[in-house]
């Protein structure tokens, strides 16, 4: 019987191989996406952004004339699945760079990609990925090949807390405001937990015990009652948008109304519509201009969007733009690497680390100017804090302040 099993696998594998013939002069890129699974609410727009951007690059001259040959795998937010996919890619696709997704899988892959020298652009902005040399005492493992576009989760949360401190003063609050971290027991919501709490304490907040709520949307009234009892003034939501909508609706029902602070994946146009009045006033770090914005780079983004939507009518939310930016930083690094001895992992890493206040051409006003060095992979630490209002369906983003979180040495890798 084992023999027939073997022949079955042979037949299956041969047929699978025949479909992945490699074209000459192409750049293999892996694309790990979350189209199903608990974070698919934001994974789909981001993944579409990444795929559209790569298709756009291919149909507009490629990277110095070379085509990106990418393979998309939906790993359903399961870290073991991501690792298995990565191991397969290393032996067949042989990617020179990877566009990835979640925190659990990216952090698990850190040592693998460092060994195989493959630059990894994650949609996880975990602070643990920012120390390439491991010199910071907080760092568990150096992450030399990890990059991401945007401020780290920890820096974002620090920025929000800093804004909250000012907000507390301006509203004439008495005594120490109370800060609480909420999120699933999962690497992604956990990433900024301690770092942010430490900074909140530094700023004079009273930090309460964190509350755990599920990454999958569901009833969260029990958590909201705990939140109400705790008397928190500022509550950080560490989960993605879908989960936060159900949390806010539950909290609206039980009457728990602190000022909610969302992480960068935790709030978008869809959630404003879905949470309606319960979501009024959530403070959110805006990682990109919204679809109707008139920033000069949005013309390019609209052209990119036409790759999968020729009519140009689909509304793309904030996460789409961030996916586009992640790909264009990679593309720019590849172009530099090509001139400096070829598109290989180490050359791409070097090119990334030469970027200084870099904005990809054509995306001005869309992607934030970012700087990476060989010792610091915090691309940007600028947090634009907005609050949102439902406004009867015609939602609004109200600018509050732009916080420049200091690049402290002891915050590297934390």
């Amino acid at each position, binding site marked *: 019987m084992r023999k027939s099993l073997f022949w079955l696998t042979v037949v299956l594998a041969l047929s699978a191989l025949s*479909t992945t013939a490699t074209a000459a002069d192409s750049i293999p890129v892996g694309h790990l996406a979350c189209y199903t699974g608990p974070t698919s609410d934001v994974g789909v727009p981001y993944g579409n952004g990444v795929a559209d951007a790569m298709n756009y690059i291919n149909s507009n001259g490629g990277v110095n004339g070379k085509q990106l040959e990418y393979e998309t795998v939906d790993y359903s937010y399961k*870290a073991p699945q991501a690792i298995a996919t990565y191991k*397969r890619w290393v*032996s067949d696709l042989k990617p020179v760079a990877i566009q990835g997704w979640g925190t659990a899988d990216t952090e698990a892959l850190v040592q693998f990609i460092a060994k195989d020298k493959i630059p990894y652009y994650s949609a996880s902005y975990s602070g643990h990925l920012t120390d390439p040399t491991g010199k910071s005492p907080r760092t568990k493992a150096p992450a030399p090949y990890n990059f991401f576009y945007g401020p780290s989760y920890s820096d974002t949360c620090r920025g929000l807390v800093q804004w909250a401190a000012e907000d507390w003063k301006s509203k004439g609050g008495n005594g120490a405001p109370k800060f609480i971290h909420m999120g699933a*027991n999962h*690497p992604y919501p956990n990433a900024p937990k301690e770092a942010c709490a430490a900074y909140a304490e530094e700023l004079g907040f009273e930090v309460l015990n964190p509350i755990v709520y599920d990454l999958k949307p569901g009833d969260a009234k029990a958590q909201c009652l705990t939140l109400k009892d705790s008397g928190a003034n500022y509550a950080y939501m560490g989960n993605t948008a879908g989960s936060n909508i159900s949390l806010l609706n539950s909290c609206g029902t039980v009457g728990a109304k602190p000022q909610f602070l969302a992480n960068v994946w935790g709030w978008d146009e869809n959630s404003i519509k879905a949470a309606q009045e319960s979501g009024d006033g959530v403070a959110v770090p805006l990682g990109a201009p919204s679809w109707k914005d008139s920033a000069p780079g949005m013309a390019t983004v609209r052209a990119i969007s036409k790759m999968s939507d020729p009519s140009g009518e689909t509304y793309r939310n904030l996460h789409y733009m961030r996916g586009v930016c992640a790909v264009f930083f990679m593309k720019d690094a590849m172009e530099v690497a090509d001139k400096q001895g070829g598109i290989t992992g180490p050359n791409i890493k070097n090119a990334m680390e030469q970027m200084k206040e870099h904005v990809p051409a054509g995306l001005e006003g869309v992607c934030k100017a970012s700087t990476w060095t060989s010792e610091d992979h915090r691309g940007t630490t600028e947090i634009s804090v907005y609050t949102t209002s439902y406004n009867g369906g015609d939602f609004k983003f109200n600018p509050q302040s732009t916080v420049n979180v200091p690049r402290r040495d002891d915050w590297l890798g934390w």
Partner: protein
Amino acid sequence: MASAHSRMRCGEFRTNYRQDTTIFPTPLARRVAVVSVLLLMLVPMFGSAYQLNLLIQIGYYGIAALGLNIVVGFTGQISLGHAAFFGLGAFSSAWINSTTGIPVFFCIPLAGLMTMAVGLLVGIPAGRIKGLYLAIATLASQYILEDFFARADWFTGGSAGAMANPFSLFGYQMNSDRSYFYVVLFYVVIMYLAGTNLLRTRDGRAFVAVRDHYLSAEIMGINLNKYRILSFGISSLYAGIGGALFGHYLGFVSAEGFTIMLSIQFLAMVIIGGLGSVMGSMLGTVFMVLLPEVMEFGVHLVGSNNSALTQALAYIKEMAIGLAIILFLIFEPDGLSHRWKMIKNYWKLYPFSY
């Protein structure tokens, strides 16, 4: 296996019990098994990474599935917590290796023993309760262990997971699919021989007696408590070794991999393969591992340009597993091993069967 003896070839006579309880039913079966293992040893020389990956998956899941078959198929108990033991094996091996520095080579069997100890503990309710109540008790152990994995930072790394070092032998790192395949094959052969052999022993016969009629078994002097708990222990040993092999293969162990879904997949493996059949455990594993791959292949064949179909692939894979279980329960409740025997018999009597 017993039914295979009753359908032996013409010219094979057994005159004592010893001949009737050989590990392989016939000399031909033994020769086929030996040749199959030898042929499998050649696979890494020309097999692709994809094929090896599937074979390795079949290997470690197959070991764990045999463990579940011992408790469900042979002893007639139910376990909904097998994935948690599989995970415990993976975490234990990584933990022993990283805290004590004992080579991975020894960590795998040690992890098996550690899992067995926990399995014996969790099996205690099985001595008292049965049927649906036991199912719920094992479900509880699944959730307790799962939650433990997500919170025990010292043991599992908490929600972030643990790194597992690659397998090494005499300083040679076996972390490629090609070399790791031999490690898994070695364990599959050992564990499957041990499993088959177990059923020829006094303890193995006691398991079957407990399953077939627990009251009669007790009257015959079989200690029900002891054998029910023992079967949970042995089943956990298999799960632990399978899990440890999985952990060191992937290099990373995370709590989210060992959910109730995997427990149900293990149950599906033994049901599809055939309850109470050693070879069935392997056949069921092969089926369950290859089914999603076949689905993926089919989807790419039908519509690689059809993005709706490609995006639905994850659902199609899940649904196919559910559908397969239902179809097997209706049309082939005895599993693949029974079907395989029927095919063999058909050809044995061909063309004069009636």
